[in-house]
């Protein structure tokens, strides 16, 4: 869908043609759903989050000015919906690692060979490992990494979205990756832990 097509549908909906909103839903639901899934870690919650994001988008459509693309705006909304959800969930958690903890100052743990393109490991398996490790990242790190990787935002766009400096974006993304390295190597074999159970929103590391 081109930007023009997007804007046309939006103005239709703004003028009362609710049914047309479905086109926007169908166009964006895969990305929204997968973004939510990687944020909250399970399908039920991802479903709820996706719904809520779209409903919120629909409700705020009146004030959408079209400075950015609707899809990008929607993905940011999804991220925020997920963060709110995780924050509420986080109240129940027993660990209270703050966002910028001492772990960030540690050296990067050099990842092992399995990440090399020639490695024998099944790529799919490796990706599952990474996804599970992702859920152990503090939610803000997870969010910024996903803004970059799924939403495809540039550092500059992310900086504007989060109202921070571009340099901060760069270092936070790096720290997120660094932390992921530590999670994947330092904490031993993810494949052997029962992380699938505590994958819900990565609560343990909040």
């Amino acid at each position, binding site marked *: 869908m081109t930007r023009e097509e997007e804007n046309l549908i939006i103005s239709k909906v703004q003028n009362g043609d609710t049914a047309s909103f479905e086109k926007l*839903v169908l166009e964006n639901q895969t990305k929204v*759903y997968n973004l939510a899934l990687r944020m909250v870690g399970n399908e039920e919650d991802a479903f709820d989050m996706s719904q809520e994001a779209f409903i919120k988008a629909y409700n705020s459509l009146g004030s959408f000015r079209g400075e950015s693309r609707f899809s990008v705006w929607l993905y940011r909304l999804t991220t925020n919906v997920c963060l709110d959800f995780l924050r509420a969930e986080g109240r129940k958690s027993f660990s209270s690692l703050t966002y910028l903890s001492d772990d960030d100052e540690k050296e990067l743990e050099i990842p092992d060979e399995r990440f090399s393109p020639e490695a024998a490991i099944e790529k799919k398996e490796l990706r599952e490992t990474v996804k599970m490790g992702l859920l152990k990242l503090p939610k803000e790190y997870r969010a910024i990494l996903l803004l970059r990787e799924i939403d495809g935002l540039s550092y500059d766009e992310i900086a504007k979205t989060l109202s921070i400096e571009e340099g901060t974006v760069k270092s936070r993304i790096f720290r997120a990756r660094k932390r992921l390295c530590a999670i994947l190597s330092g904490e031993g074999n993810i494949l052997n832990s029962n992380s699938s159970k505590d994958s819900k929103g990565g609560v343990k590391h909040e």
Partner: protein
Amino acid sequence: MNNCSQYFELISAMIDGELETELESELRTHLEHCDECKRVYNAFKEFSNALSKDFVRPPEILSKSIMQRVNKQKKGTKKPFIFGRFTAVAACLALILLGASRFGFFDGLNNNKQIEKSSLRSADIGEMVTNSDHEEFNTQNYSSNSLQENTNDSSEQIMIKGDINETEEDVVFQFGFPTQNTGVNGTNIEDIQKEPLFLFEAKELSIYEGKYSSNDEQKNKLLFTVKNEEELTAFSELLTAVPEGTTKYEIDDDQFVKSNPKYTVYIPADKDKNSKINDKMISIWYINEEIWGVIQDVRKPTLNVENTKDFSIEKILYKALGSPNKCEDFIKKLGK
């Protein structure tokens, strides 16, 4: 080791295409013969792949349920109403209080989350219901065992046919329960999960201080009766359940339900509309700058002793939108 750590952050930026050209070419040269940095690069690349690739298709009903809600919203935006979101948690609560087997409403649901939670809480909740009901309905032995026993009287209560229709009259409040049919005969399961649990109509309400006893009217301390449309609207907004996604019931919080509520709101049913509807009652507590409510039907003890022996009241615990401050302001205003 060597000081490749200076390169790591650059590698991160390069993956994102955010490295200046000269630095990038310098880095690429370095990568050709530095094993460590190469591994870092590969790992970061794989992270990127894992996150941005292998997308799954969302469930088919996602778009349908979104559109359903969007359309529904469009219809009923003007009417003020109090609704409780059918969250997994609230549903659980209702489930336990009535006894899962009886609430045929839930037969279709196989949401593991719900079942898990209900087994955790039945002990606490059963007790909560027992204790708080004891004084009000002292004509029968109310025990948590009675939850299991099924009588016609109680099942009728589930069938409260509060129609969730919007009328054009000067109804300012809508409360109700979904009909029993919902969910059993082919209505979309996902719809049930997202439908308001309670929703009903009222033209006036009474605010009592503390607890309300339908047995012993003398004991009740009536503060105000609200009939004015504006006031009803305002108050209904205070008591509306927090919208979907944020209504959460935390197990530690149910301790407060054993204490007396701050106020009890009594809502007489509109018998002309539907003679089967019961009066409703909402007990409210102020907890940590939030308003929490327990809404239930008011079941007056009948003359038929048999029926009054075992019955349970469906109670729904929910968090309200309003804040204690706003509520107090409202009450003060009423007093003037």
